[in-house]
């Protein structure tokens, strides 16, 4: 019983309340409502997934046929009946070289997903072998004060995911470090708030592309004489700058709208200015600050893909772009795989932030 309570509490806190019917089914005697709940919350969503896959399958089939007919007709017009028949036979046989290039079907995407994982295994093995091979040599090189040799082969899809995550976290941290302190300062002073408001209002809606170009101009010059990884620096700074505004605005709002009762307590206890900020104002604005941070993280993840794509810095964005330009037969399905991965990671990041947000927030009336 106790177990199921904590389990429920955790799923609730994580925002995975929809899992409750399952935990209810397995952690005790199922009641009639549990079964109805199970149907409502599990079966219906499953049906919706099936429906989605069905529509997708049908749509991709229709597109496939359209593209195939077009190909055959083109061959007929250009080269005559024999060529058209040949292409028709080729398409029907499933030969890779003559497949029409269009929206891939769910099963093709699933195959590509497995291919990408296989590919990752191969590359990881490759990397490991390379590392073993160069281990002795690298030690000598380091001892001699030279740069060690690093693996420069193609990164796998999974590597790309981790690169993207690294970039997004760097950008998120940058946003946090800039936006929270500034937000607090602005929130504390009405004068500062009104004098900085125009700046926030103007920069908030600027598109990620423009931020990227701006950061590019500056970082390019700054890193002229160092050989550091400027693509990474450019993309994480751009991500941070694009996404920090939500946190800035929310922090300022939280700090400036602290409940009057709490301020009265601070006055009656005669807290010093620092104490007042750290013990009363900041804790009471934490819920809003975390709301801002949650928005910031999801914006960061969203713009990251576009920025990587433009900045040619490694990651999921450039993976998508390379596959698109590559034009191989399974490129389209790899792009769709990336789409799902991007969506799922975005969803998970949001859940993590939601959990933290729920942990720090309190009801306004709780102390009153």
């Amino acid at each position, binding site marked *: 019983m106790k177990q199921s309570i904590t389990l429920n509490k955790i799923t609730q806190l994580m925002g995975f309340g929809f899992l409750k019917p399952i935990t209810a089914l397995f952690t005790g005697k199922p009641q009639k409502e549990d079964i109805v709940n199970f149907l409502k919350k599990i079966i219906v969503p499953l049906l919706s997934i099936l429906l989605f896959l069905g529509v997708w399958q049908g749509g991709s089939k229709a597109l496939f046929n359209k593209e195939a007919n077009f190909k055959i007709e083109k061959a007929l017009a250009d080269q005559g009946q024999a060529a058209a028949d040949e292409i028709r036979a080729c398409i029907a046989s499933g030969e890779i070289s003559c497949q029409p290039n269009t929206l891939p079907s769910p099963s093709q995407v699933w195959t590509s997903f497995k291919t990408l994982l296989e590919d990752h295994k191969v590359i990881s093995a490759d990397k490991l072998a390379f590392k073993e091979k160069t281990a002795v040599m690298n030690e000598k090189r380091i001892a001699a004060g030279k740069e060690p040799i690093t693996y420069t082969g193609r990164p796998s899809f999974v590597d790309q995911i981790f690169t993207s995550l690294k970039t997004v976290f760097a950008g998120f941290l940058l946003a946090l470090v800039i936006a929270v302190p500034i937000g607090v300062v602005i929130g504390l002073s009405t004068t500062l708030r009104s004098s900085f408001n125009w700046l926030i209002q103007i920069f908030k809606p600027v598109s990620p592309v423009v931020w990227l170009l701006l950061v590019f101009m500056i970082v390019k010059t700054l890193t002229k004489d160092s050989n550091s990884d400027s693509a990474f620096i450019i993309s994480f700074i751009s991500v941070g700058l694009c996404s920090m505004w939500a946190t800035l605005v929310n922090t300022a709002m939280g700090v400036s709208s602290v409940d009057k*009762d709490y301020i*009265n307590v601070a*006055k*009656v206890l*005669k807290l010093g200015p620092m104490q007042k900020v750290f013990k009363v104002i900041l804790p009471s604005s934490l819920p809003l600050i975390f709301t801002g941070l949650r928005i910031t993280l999801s914006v960061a993840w969203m713009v990251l893909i576009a920025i990587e794509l433009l900045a040619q810095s490694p990651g999921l964005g450039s993976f998508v772009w390379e596959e698109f330009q590559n034009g191989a037969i399974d490129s389209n399905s790899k792009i769709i795989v990336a789409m799902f991965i991007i969506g799922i990671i975005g969803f998970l990041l949001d859940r993590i932030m939601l959990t933290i947000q729920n942990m720090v927030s*309190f*009801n306004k009336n*709780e102390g*009153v």
Partner: protein
Amino acid sequence: MAYLELKNVCKTYEDASGGTKVLSNINLTIEEGEFVAIVGFTGSGKTTLVNLINGLIKPTSGEVLFKGEPVTDTSHERGVIFQNYSLLPWLTVGQNVYMAVKEAFPKESKEKLQAIVKDYVAMVSLSPAINKRPKELSGGMRQRVAVARALAMNPEMIIMDEPLGALDALTRGNLQDEILNIWSKDKRTALLITNDVDEGIYMADRIIPLKPGPNATLGPEFIIDIERPRDKTSLNDNETYKKNRNAIIEYLMDIGNERKSVSNETYELPEISPKSFVA
């Protein structure tokens, strides 16, 4: 020199439509060691009066003098129990009290402060809940935390804004005794806002009604000349008690009726006839 003195104090809350005059011409003198209770109707400006005395707001005109000095800011000498508890929801019961004690005795060691916190939390019988957050407490428990927080700071003057309103009769009685105990121990001064005449008579030396606002003023004072320590059970038969209780209630009822009759607005009633569900 009086300990606390309010001279012709008026308070108007400014707003867009010119402002509401809540208090007018409040004159009040409290001597050191006295226990004064103020009774009044809801919305008459009792909290406003309390905030003027503790220094959270400033009078529009007139003066508030504490030990002869004008009150310009809050002070540790005047402890406040807020009507709406005002606990910090992100701190536990113990931490809420600790925060106050730490400010009141900045030089004491941590262990000493913890001990004080423990004592006062035990005094309001909340020891089992010392590590709980306000959201896990009932309204009455929160009110007791607010009492513990104010008293733990050991203020010279205790200002209480309906501190026991949300409590049941038994707990209320116990806390009344605790407050009286603390008040009499070092001859402190106390100002109690209450809407319970019996509570006022049991605890105070003087009871002063606050007339209903706007433009609320203080009414005539009633001196409760009963030996301390007072005994609740025998109080009911005490002649002074009965006399004062009746006088105060009569007075309050009179001003209550007056307030009703002052309103000479006439309301046009809509013509309504009962609807027939049969037809």
